[in-house]
């Protein structure tokens, strides 16, 4: 078996989710190569080569890889796929954009968001917003897989010295181009990597009131998330949405404030180790999965919580 993992990075740094995708590759067993495709990404390549569990870094540092456009990156991966039995990436929005395109080029059925490796061709994955877990067997020669990062513990980021092979030819397909981006700037930890997440829902009533959560998050070193209702109401930006169609988080502690607990929200956070719910409605479904529930008005509970931390 021979596995190619596609690294996710911002040209400077690897995304920790890649270390979880590598953990799934280690469970599969066999040689693991890590592809780092980017533009001006030497720092990420250097970092990749230090990962102990990999044999080789396959590097493509090229302007056509800038902004990770699927139209350009997918053929690069597919063209360099020969000899690999598995191609893996962490299930981030970047990989979800690219990997099915790779699978189509290889004429295989991709397997999204695996949460467990059963064997070399059999995997578990959540379906129906995590309400069911499917066991799926792939009969394709190459398995193209995205990995749910929260389900695998990251591999060591250092201790190795892999060789680096450089790919020279990368095509710009010329059918898509980057125009602009609005990236969230925050000094707080990234949602999917944080060990504590504090999330607010429609109950927060306004974007300004999220300050109550930010202050608590800063005391705890936590990231701040939100329900879809809070994002739809424009209290906070979309990158904060936790759930079936937002981000999947599994921190040590998840504090849900003014969130009712719709299944689509639970899908994104119910694997958290400890769940706290603060809600004024004692019937709110969120309490049925919370380890600690506090029935209270958040506007009195949050300032008090902040002062006691």
């Amino acid at each position, binding site marked *: 078996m021979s596995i190619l993992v596609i690294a996710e990075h911002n040209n400077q740094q690897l995304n920790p989710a890649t270390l979880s995708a590598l953990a799934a590759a280690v469970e599969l067993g066999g040689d693991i190569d890590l592809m780092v495709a980017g533009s001006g990404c030497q720092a990420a390549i250097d970092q990749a080569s230090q990962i102990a569990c990999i044999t080789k870094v396959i590097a493509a540092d090229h302007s056509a890889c800038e902004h990770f456009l*699927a*139209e350009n990156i*997918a053929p690069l991966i597919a063209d360099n796929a020969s000899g690999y039995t598995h191609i893996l990436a962490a299930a981030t*929005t*970047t990989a*979800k*954009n*690219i*990997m*099915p*395109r790779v*699978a*189509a080029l290889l*004429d*295989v*059925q*991709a397997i999204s968001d695996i949460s467990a490796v059963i064997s070399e061709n059999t995997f578990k994955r*959540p*379906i*129906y917003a995590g*309400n*069911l*877990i*499917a*066991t799926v067997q*792939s009969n*394709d020669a190459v398995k193209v897989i995205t990995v749910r990062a929260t389900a695998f513990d990251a591999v060591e980021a250092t201790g190795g010295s892999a060789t680096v092979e450089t790919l020279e030819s990368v095509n710009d397909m*010329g*059918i898509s181009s980057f*125009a602009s*981006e*609005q*990236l*969230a700037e925050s000094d707080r930890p990234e949602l999917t990597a944080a060990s*504590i997440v504090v999330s607010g829902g429609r109950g927060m009533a306004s974007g300004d009131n999220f300050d109550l959560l930010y202050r608590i998050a800063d005391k*705890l070193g936590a990231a701040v998330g939100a329900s*879809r209702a809070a994002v*739809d109401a424009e209290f906070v*930006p*979309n*990158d904060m949405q936790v759930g*079936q*169609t937002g981000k999947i988080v599994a921190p040590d*502690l998840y504090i849900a404030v003014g969130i009712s607990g719709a*299944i689509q929200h639970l899908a994104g956070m*119910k694997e958290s*180790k400890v*769940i706290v719910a603060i809600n004024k409605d004692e019937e709110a479904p969120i*309490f*049925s*999965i919370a*380890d*600690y*529930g*506090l*029935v*209270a008005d958040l506007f009195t509970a949050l300032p008090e*919580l902040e002062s*006691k*931390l």
Partner: protein
Amino acid sequence: MKILVAVKRVVDYNVKVRPNSDSSDVELANVKMSVNPFCEIAVEEAVRLKEKGIATEIIAVTIGTVQSQEQLRTCLALGADRAILVETDIPVEPLAVAKCLKAVYEEEQPDIVLMGKQAIDGDNNQTGQMLASMLGCAQGTFASEVSVEEGSIAVTREIDGGLQTLSLKLPAVITTDLRLNEPRYASLPNIMKAKQKPLATRSAEELGVDVSPRTQLLGVELPAQRQAGIKVNDVAQLVDKLKNEAKVIS
């Protein structure tokens, strides 16, 4: 400009699904079925493009059982001009769906294909990307804003870090995210009118597509259920529990 909208019949998002009696698949007997919510958003976007005078014709297409006609009728009531059912009896995977859509695309030659970013049954999030790949065209996935220009389309995408805007050459495949628009409800007169709109039925064989599955579902199970914990009396007790019992804060 012609728009093809791909829609899927799925278990309604309000239904709490269960495994069937032998846990071989999801229990689908007597379960409410609907248009996948992301596909409704795709239909709505197409209708808005038509209302703006940008689109001239909207064709809704689905690959599925004969019952999927219901969902196509809903799309017709929402504003699609005609519909195509590619009828199959077996559940189709994203790769096979994309192949069927490619065949329909080649017959219809639309300028834009609008689809959902994911079907909420399998949560695969693959089909649009696969179709774009097979067509060798650009893709704008997870779209929260689209604006059609001369020969190109600007798509703002919801990505993990925030928002990204791409410019795509046409034809292109766009997959919708939740905030692209809020779908309308079909009015009664439009539901009546939809009954008269054309709905063609095709088969995968006729389109020359092999839809045989590449993966096998070995079974489904309920995830480990979380037990409800305790209710604390006040904030002080909560902090105490988190520090001394759960030991998740210090």
